[in-house]
């Protein structure tokens, strides 16, 4: 993993499969007060990719009910349908196919096959199975997974376009629990690696980027902040600052101090 620093005039772009983006912050659309708050927060976040869930329409509901995609038009945002709620490979594949139809053939999906467990951790066996089917079926798969570097490597080998290990349980806001494993994943994968889930505040998003991640995906940290729109701005800046710090190359850590001001020519000393 060697850092190629973009020139001053060059953009630092981020590519997933056949798609290229400027923003490295991906955001979810759940848990907001209403669609208007969703729209404003996402605008403030600068995100280009937004995740959505696929659910049954309410039969018999008011036909004029507003629709999320009216607030986040697919011609402005890259809509990334997820498979949240699926606990088996079969359900996840089925959901992706519905999503592709819904989005007029758009084939970039976020695969997540969660265990039925309070951690909402992925079931990695089912995730691997689903990834195989989806890749064969022509999807460009961004896959939510545990921070197990071996599983991450297997998902890349299957053909996933981005691997997205969790930082901490979804919605917990606990911050990266195991930066070591994230670093191990980054050391070896060549597809983009994004931390998905677990970030609670801005500095934690910066930490993920400083490790060398290609991006961060979050939802709750913005949606459940006291002021979601202000937090969205904070996260936008945090991801940018972490990315820049990674590219800029941090100073070496030193076990002892090193003066910032020169220690010679001090007033009142006899010259040594």
């Amino acid at each position, binding site marked *: 993993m060697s850092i190629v620093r973009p020139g001053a005039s060059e953009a630092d772009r981020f590519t997933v499969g056949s798609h290229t983006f400027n923003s490295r912050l991906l955001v*979810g*659309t*759940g*848990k*907001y007060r209403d*669609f208007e708050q*969703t729209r404003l927060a996402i605008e403030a976040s600068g995100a280009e990719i937004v*995740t*959505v*869930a*696929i*659910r*049954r*329409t309410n*039969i*018999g509901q008011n*036909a004029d009910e507003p*629709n*999320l*995609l009216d607030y986040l038009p697919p011609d402005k945002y890259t*809509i990334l*349908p*997820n498979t*949240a709620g699926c606990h088996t490979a079969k359900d996840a594949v*089925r959901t992706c*196919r*519905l*999503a*592709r*139809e*819904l*989005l007029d053939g758009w084939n970039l999906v976020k695969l997540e096959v969660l265990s039925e467990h309070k951690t909402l951790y992925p079931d990695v066996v089912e995730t691997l199975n689903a990834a195989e089917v989806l890749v064969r079926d022509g999807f460009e798969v961004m896959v939510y997974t545990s921070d197990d570097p071996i599983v991450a490597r297997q998902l890349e080998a299957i053909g996933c376009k981005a691997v997205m290990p969790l930082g901490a349980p*979804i*919605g917990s806001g606990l911050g990266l629990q195991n930066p070591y494993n994230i670093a191990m994943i980054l050391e070896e994968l060549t597809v983009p690696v994004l931390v998905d*889930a677990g970030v609670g505040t801005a500095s934690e998003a910066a930490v993920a980027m400083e490790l060398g991640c290609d991006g961060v995906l*979050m*939802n*709750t940290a913005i*949606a459940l902040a006291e002021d979601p729109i202000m937090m969205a701005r904070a996260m936008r800046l945090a991801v940018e600052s972490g990315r820049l710090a990674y590219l800029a190359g941090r100073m070496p850590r030193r076990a002892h101090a090193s003066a910032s001001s020169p220690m010679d020519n001090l007033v009142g000393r006899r010259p040594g």
Partner: protein
Amino acid sequence: MKTVDISVNGEACSMPADASVADLLAELKLAGRRIAVELNENIVPKSSYAQTRLATGDQLEIVHAIGGG
């Protein structure tokens, strides 16, 4: 008049005997909205709504995008 008994999103429902998916969507006031339809676990492309006939026992899923993370 003859009808077909189908299930839509897990709920029982009946439609006239020669109804198409397009008819169902019109009935549900979902025509033209951003949705996707699955019939017996197979996707029904938008372009086939009109010619896809419903039969008794059909299981339909009609989905849309909602907020999610």
